[in-house]
């Protein structure tokens, strides 16, 4: 009886080993900004077809939250892709992996840009009338429902406010910001416009008034379904997201869309300051600048080899095509910060034209 029992145990162990051995995959943990959901989901599928031994595990968050998982929560992540590349030096360069003197990162690739634009539908009020010159006036009309993402939580949220502040210079009207926002919130979002210095103050509590024509949600993603359902007429979104969802799009002038390198100085006139500290490691001050997505492999990535293969694939013709199909083309040739520190496997990317 003992022999039979021992034999069956061995059989079980063999079964276990047999079942597992060929199917074991390398998990590749990718944390990315929410606006990358669609292209990165497509990338994941294509990459896994080519590398069946790697299981890409994507998780999407707001850009600050992406960083926080690395530097505050100390999670082991293989690739970080943020919609605000300035967060990488601000947080990952400055913070050492606990128990070491090694920073979480010492390089990043400027992966892609984006532009802010206004999404709407054929059913949106005044959609036949709206254009690059009058959008702010139409969005200020009381009978127009405008969706805003919450600047306390979302990069689109504070960037859309920057657009209104900058518009005052572009259109030579000093009341554009207040015309749109005044009396819409129980505690006002304020702009102090000193010409070359514009400071937007975000209060700690942000709730719309009962009569407001603004509908504010925690993220720009939450505005998409409201726009689809006709609950709102217009919403600020990234151009890539608008195109991915097939909305009508009003492009903003270069001086306002936060996507043009040549306008960086102009964007830099505006700063958004929160009246509170949300993350211990993030100074709640956001300066206007060109939107740039940053990509890096954290120094404590458990699978740096697989991470490098993913980034190589991203920059392959297939990967670039996927990004382009999602209206989110990569920046080439490669630019970024401290690219001399790129892992050896990625040095070849520097030859991309």
């Amino acid at each position, binding site marked *: *009886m003992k022999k*039979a*029992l021992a034999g*069956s*145990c061995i*059989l*079980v*162990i063999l*079964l*276990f080993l047999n*079942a*597992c051995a060929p*199917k074991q*995959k390398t*998990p590749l943990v990718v944390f990315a900004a*929410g606006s990358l*959901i669609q292209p990165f989901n497509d990338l994941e599928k294509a990459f896994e077809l080519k590398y069946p031994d790697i*299981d890409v*595990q994507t*998780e*999407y*968050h*707001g850009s600050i*939250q992406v960083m*926080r998982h690395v530097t*505050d*929560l100390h999670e082991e992540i293989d690739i970080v892709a943020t919609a605000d590349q300035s967060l990488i030096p601000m947080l990952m360069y400055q913070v050492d992996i606990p128990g070491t003197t090694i920073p979480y990162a010492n390089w990043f690739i400027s992966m892609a840009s984006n532009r802010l634009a206004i999404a709407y539908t054929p059913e949106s009020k005044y959609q036949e009338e709206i254009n690059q010159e009058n959008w702010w006036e139409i969005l200020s009309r009381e009978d127009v429902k405008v969706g805003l993402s919450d600047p*306390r*939580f*979302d990069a689109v949220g504070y960037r859309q406010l920057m657009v209104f502040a900058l518009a005052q210079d572009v259109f030579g009207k000093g009341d554009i910001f207040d015309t749109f926002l005044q009396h819409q919130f129980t505690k*006002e979002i*304020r702009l*102090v*416009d*000193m*010409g070359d*210095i514009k*400071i937007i*103050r975000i209060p*700690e*509590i942000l*709730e719309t008034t009962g009569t407001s024509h603004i509908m504010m*949600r*925690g*993220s720009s*993603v*939450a505005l998409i*379904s*409201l726009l689809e*359902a006709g*609950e709102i007429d217009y919403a600020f979104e990234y151009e890539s997201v608008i195109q991915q969802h097939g909305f009508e799009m009003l492009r903003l002038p270069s001086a306002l869309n936060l996507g043009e390198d040549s306008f960086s100085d102009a964007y830099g006139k505006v700063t958004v*300051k929160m*009246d*509170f*500290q*949300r*993350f*211990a*490691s993030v100074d709640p001050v956001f300066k206007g600048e060109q939107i740039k997505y940053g990509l890096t492999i954290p120094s404590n990535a458990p699978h740096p080899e697989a991470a490098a293969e993913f980034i190589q694939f991203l920059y392959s013709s297939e990967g670039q095509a996927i990004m382009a199909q999602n209206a989110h083309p990569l920046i080439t040739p490669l630019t970024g910060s401290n690219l001399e520190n790129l892992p050896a496997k990625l040095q070849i990317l520097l030859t991309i034209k």
Partner: protein
Amino acid sequence: MKFLFKNVVFVLLMGVMISLTGCSPAVQEAPVDVQTETPEILETVLELVKGEEVVYFTMDQLKSLPAVEGLAGIMSSTGKITAPALHKGVLVSTLLAELGGMTDTHSVEVVAEDGYSITFSPKQILNGEYITYDVSSGDEMETIGLLQTIIAYEREGKPLDPEMEGSLRLVVIGESPLQVVDGHWSIKYANKIVLKDAVEDWVVNFKGAIEEPMDRATFESGAAEGCHQYSWTDDEGHVWEGIPLYYLIGRVDDEVKHGDDAFRDDLAKTGYTIDLISADGYTVTLDSYTAMRNDNIIVAYLVDGEPLTGENFPLRLVGPELSKKQMVGGITSVVINFESAAATEEPTAQIVGEVPAIIGPADATLSLRGALDAEKNLTMDDLLKLAVVNTSVEHPKKGAIEVTGVKMSDILALLTIKSEAKTVSFIAGDGWSVDLPLADLQACESCLLGWDEEMLRTYMPGFDSNFWAKDLVAIEFK
């Protein structure tokens, strides 16, 4: 034998189950384990703070409070949904009762061990006003039933995992499994709740050539680092932070509120006075010479990093050049008395402008630039506000001519010329320019900045005709 067969089948089944579990490709979060009593549980798990008052709770103390249960689920900022699960804990409003309760004027900051914090409004804590989303589609939906904000210590009957999310998690519970709320209202590792008085807003009235009621946010923006932030440490080591008085005066001494030339040196030189008036009527008066571009006279809004309170609220005048008596607190208004400057002027110094005999081009502009504290542009309207003279001047070649203009000395009085400036350039629209010593221009009582119907000109009696500029567009100080 039958027993043996059963045993073998059982072991085989277990093996298959183990192998299936072991091979599962998805990395699933492990089910929450039941925590047994550990020494940590006896320690403080939550702090309630209101000002100086702090109340500490151990887990046992928390569990001794009236408990509520409900379903809490979230949708992340990227649309990922975590389905509702049964949570048990204590209402935040019940906890706040320990601090005297929450009213409409309070806000509640929830702080997590990992440094995250977020502030809740009275509407959220007291009325459960949150946006809800359909658990299957993520679409926004009407809230079903009552929502409540709790500090949870159990999920599905088991303690929370201290490693994965902390012993306590702030969640919003409801009655329906069909709805979730925004993920940022679910706070893991929660360990502190701060009941805050709504920051008291204030408005101080600044009155000069224009009137500007200045509120807290506007003042704080101006006092931001990189803007006009100045500080002073008093004898007792208290650090006062604020904005130099003259910056604030610059906002109301004329229509120009911002920029280098917001503060009008020329007006300050006329000797006006500034009244700083407190809530009880106590008034401190400074003269404009004392305040002019003086970074040591500060209107403070913070002391040791905290907003001013008591008799100093909201603003206090401080600085090393002031006596204690001058450091008025509780400022409610600041008034510039231009009349005092006018009253002290000698009647003979009053220059009465004439109606211009020659009307100059309405679009003419003169740039005053170079070694000046603040560069200026003067339009024809600006020039006509000065003392216009219609007079006869002696041209070196043409003889006496009738001209209209303003005295160069009046133009120079508008400026604060830097000490290094020694030369003046008259610059014409076609790029032509001529230099002369600044001292010569300052000494010339009869020199005029004038105009004809087409352009600005200089009329320079006693100077060579070369200095009689036509189509003048700029005067540069070098």
